[in-house]
């Protein structure tokens, strides 16, 4: 008994510090999985092994999964680094088949499940590709050369899936794809798959579509004709398939570009963190006037719905960072809307209300936000990371140039443009503009014809007013499925 007490006492002493809490708290811990944006589904082709299971943006930029698995039953999973992804295409290559499906709306730690390489996904993808080709929005390799809103694609998918359920050309095309899929040759080792290649479609002046580059290999059909059209006769060419695809693709509502979302607008910020850039007074910005540089830092955005905003939306306030610094990362790695990796220009995008969700018919209400950029690490406080202490940048979310994107380009540490108070603008003032070191929402400090608090037309490089700068090329407007042609 005494030995037991002794042992208990010693154990108690030993447990009371010295790193043992960490040990006992983590001894059973299994390492967390790396955060991932996952795509999963089925790619079941009996007896044919996948020679490629890849994923790329619809523009053709390969994305590298850090983990790719496919089990014996044909269930696959691709784990991409956790991030916001634009529209993606996954590709499964096996035997004489080359299958592509479109994945939409894959977000950070998001899961796109049931992305099966089945007739439905493949058919809707072919329609999508064919329509964009006819609209001149694809290149020779079938890569799509214009940003497509995931919402627009999802709208297209919904329409197509509805049409798959009823008799008509869409269902006919679906059945053709279904029959073609049963004719893979598990022993085939062809270099170029027999089906389905990226369609090439031309549009005539009268609006009719013609498939000039078939998804099917005609030489294969000549050698192995079969009744893919379900007409009771063997087909030795892709003619019927191509005609059906052209017919379906020209359906007016099947517009992948979609139509502008009337309730939300895309808000895009880029900030130039390169050394030696001009500020709004045409003098060189000292990036580290207030900010401390240390290894491991990156750019963050911090914003909030301004108290003078007539739209007060808690969800938007949260998405902008709710005035908590170093929580909303910006990107300079070629992802999430950033154009060029490592060029010192950081990007972040938000989808914010175009109108007040509480009063959608009132078009006079505007969203106004305050914001800053911080150079820090995740979760650290303001000190040493913000552009400047106190004050903020202000932005009224108004789409002045009508491109359905509100785009603001800034230079880090610039205290001479849309900084509300203690503004250090020292340039010439346009007529009629008074300036006492502060700007208000309508102040047109540089005389560019738009308020300083809007999309900026001021060109930092030339220190003069210019056209509206173009937003990053991979960022498009928030489009949704069209409800009318």
């Amino acid at each position, binding site marked *: 008994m005494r030995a037991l007490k*002794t042992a208990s006492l010693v154990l108690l*002493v030993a447990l009371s*510090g*010295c*790193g043992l809490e960490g040990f006992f708290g983590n001894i059973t811990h299994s390492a*967390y999985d790396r*955060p991932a944006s996952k795509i999963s589904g089925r790619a079941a082709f009996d007896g044919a092994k996948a020679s490629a299971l890849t994923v790329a943006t619809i523009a053709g930029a390969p994305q590298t999964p850090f983990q790719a698995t496919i089990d014996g039953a044909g269930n696959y999973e691709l784990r991409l680094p956790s991030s916001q992804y634009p529209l993606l295409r996954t590709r499964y290559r096996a035997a004489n088949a080359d299958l592509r499906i479109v994945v939409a709306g894959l977000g950070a730690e998001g899961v796109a499940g049931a992305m099966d390489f089945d007739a439905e996904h493949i058919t809707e993808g072919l329609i999508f590709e064919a329509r964009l080709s006819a609209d001149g929005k694809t290149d020779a390799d079938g890569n799509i050369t214009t940003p497509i809103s995931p919402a627009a694609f999802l709208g297209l998918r919904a329409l197509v899936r509805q049409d798959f359920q009823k008799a008509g050309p869409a269902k006919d095309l679906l059945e053709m794809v279904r029959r073609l899929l049963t004719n893979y040759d598990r022993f085939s080792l062809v270099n170029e798959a027999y089906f389905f290649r990226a369609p090439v479609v031309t549009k005539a002046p009268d609006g009719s579509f013609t498939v000039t580059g078939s998804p099917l290999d005609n030489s294969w059909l000549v050698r192995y004709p079969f009744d893919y059209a379900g007409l009771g006769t063997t087909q030795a060419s892709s003619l019927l398939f191509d005609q059906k695809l052209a017919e379906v693709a020209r359906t007016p509502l099947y517009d992948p570009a979609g139509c502008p979302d009337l309730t939300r607008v895309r808000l895009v910020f880029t900030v130039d963190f390169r050394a030696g850039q001009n500020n709004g007074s045409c003098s060189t910005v000292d990036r580290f006037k207030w900010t401390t540089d240390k*290894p491991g830092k990156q750019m963050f955005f911090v914003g909030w719905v301004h108290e003078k905003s007539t739209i007060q939306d808690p969800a938007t306030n949260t998405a902008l960072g709710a005035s908590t610094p170093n929580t909303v990362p910006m990107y300079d790695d070629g992802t999430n809307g950033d154009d060029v990796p490592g060029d010192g220009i950081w990007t972040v995008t938000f989808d914010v209300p175009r109108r007040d969700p509480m009063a959608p018919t009132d078009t006079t209400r505007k969203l106004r936000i305050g914001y800053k950029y911080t150079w820090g690490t995740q979760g650290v406080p303001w000190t040493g990371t913000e552009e400047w202490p106190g004050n903020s940048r202000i932005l009224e979310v108004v789409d002045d140039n009508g491109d359905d994107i509100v785009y603001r380009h800034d230079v880090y540490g610039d205290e001479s443009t849309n900084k509300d108070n203690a503004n250090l603008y020292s340039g010439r003032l346009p007529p009629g503009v008074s300036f006492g070191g502060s700007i208000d929402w309508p102040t047109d400090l540089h005389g560019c014809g738009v308020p300083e608090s809007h999309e900026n037309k001021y060109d930092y490089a030339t220190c003069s007013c210019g056209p509206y700068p173009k937003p990053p090329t991979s960022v498009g407007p928030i489009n949704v499925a069209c409800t009318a042609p």
Partner: protein
Amino acid sequence: MVRALTVRPLVVAAALAAAPAALADTGNFDISGKIYTKYMYQNDATQGCLSMSNPFWVDNIGGHNGVCTEFELNIKARVGPRVSAGVRLQSRWGSMWQDWWENGDLKPGTYDTSGESLGMNHAQYIKLRGAFVRMAPPIPTVKWVTIGSTDYSMWNEWTIGKARYIDRDNGSGVFIEGDVLPGKRLSYTVGAMALPKLWAGPGWQTGLRNNDPLASVYGTDWAFAAKVESRPFEDLRTKLVGSWLQDWEADKNSPFLTGRPDAARGADHSVALSTRFRGLNATLDATYTPSWLEFLSVTGLAAVSSNYVNPLYATNQVRNGQGFSPVVYKKNIHGEAVASVGQAHKVLVEVFDPLKTGLSAKLEYFNIGSEYNAVMGSRREADVLLTEGMVTGGFTRGGQLPTLNIANEFQDWDEPWYESCIGWKGATLLLEYVQGPLKATVEVTGIGYNTNMQGRDVDFQYPDFLYTHGFTDTTAFTADSDYANVYDRGRDPRSVYAEYQDRRTGLAVANVQYAFTGLAGLVVSGKVKVADDLDRRRIANPSDDYHGKMLMLFGTLSLQPTNELKTTLGYEYSRWSEANREGSETAGYYDSRTRRHTARAGFTYAFGGANLGYTLEYFHKDLLRDPRAYYNMLWNVWRSKATFEVAW
């Protein structure tokens, strides 16, 4: 007003006199101090008071010309009969007498002409170097609980070794010592120690972001150790020691760190820890001294080690650090990181003058596995093998340690050198003859290598420390300008792995010393060392064999004309002939020859608590290399070191 000024001190004094028991009881204090001064000279362009500081990080205390002084104050307090405490305060080493005005300023990135620009290393500030509390609480079996600084000397060289002298109170922890059975039949020590952030782990650190971008947390890292000692009967002593080094990092994929604190993501405002490095070591050793055979002593030791590096949190320094790493980055056949596991065994039989003729003998068998590694074992100032080994010479002392983490740094040119004995297997026979003023020893050692292997992966797994062959020249070794070994100093003492190795070494050492009587304390001593080191490297390539032959002759003469003064004069001659010392499998290998003459003269003077020492050295070295590939090099170096120490 005048009246008030007169009265107020009296009131204060009266109040102090009446204050209850607030007076310091100096009888409880033990205060000691020491002033240490070092002078250095060398015919080169460096300045400072440390021959070899750290070659890696930016350091401004290393150099060979200057005078420096430090002051140390030790305060020990007897708080009560069972509680004591102590601290050591010491001024920062590094400021030279020539460093007038230095005040700690460091203004990086500015063009500073103030002369106050060298930072705190030259500011001579007093720093708390160590603090401890030791108590004997009335807990059954517990003898002592120590909280605070210690040198970790309670374990051993194969597990957690005694910290080197300069780190003697940098380590802190909590330790409990106790006796379970009386008469030392069973006693124990357990301890938890804060891991040093800078050297005990992959990349010589445990989470310094600037050293390793994969790691950033070191405040959670600890070492734990336990020792059980038993003397079951008078003739046998046994000891079991186990240690566990645990380097944690925050699990980088903890939901709280990877995104918004949304409960749906599993973010619960907590961060889990993942292992960056885990080192396990254990030894069982026993000493048998039979009372029925007093001249005999047998000591045995068995040791195991396991070192695991998590590649998610530790940059591979074999791949990214040119093969300089204190750990092996072991992978299995699937390419997954696994623990590097090794064993070691040692038996020492000692016979002390059995025939009463003055002749004693020691025989040691050692077999240290190719992957035994005590990452936090002794880094220097210890020796686990009987043999002289390869690194020692005449003036140069040293030893062997079972770790890749050996530290031949922060030392002067007259201090010992240490080499890694990982993978060594063989035996040493040492004969000693003592008769009156004569003392002589002869050592013969044969060494094979468990590390012998063809095609070892030194690109990703096993650190080779870049310089794998050649006798190490400790005399010409400098850390500042020669960190990249541009002066061709031979094998790195830590290097035990090579891509191709088929090696065996033989060495013999003879020492003789004679103390003359009546000749002012004249002592004459001499030493001869020969070594033959053969490495066939790639067995399929008969023309790449390294074959080094060493001859070292050494003699000293000491005189002590007075009680206070002792003088020494010595000379060492070394000749190395090395076939195929330098080169590569693709470019071929080339021979080299080395001749080195070293002479030293010095004295010590001890008087009334003051100690003065001075040593002057000259060495001349010729490194003669194959002119088809390399140029020759020549050293003519004068250097001296003086120390003056007063303690009270």
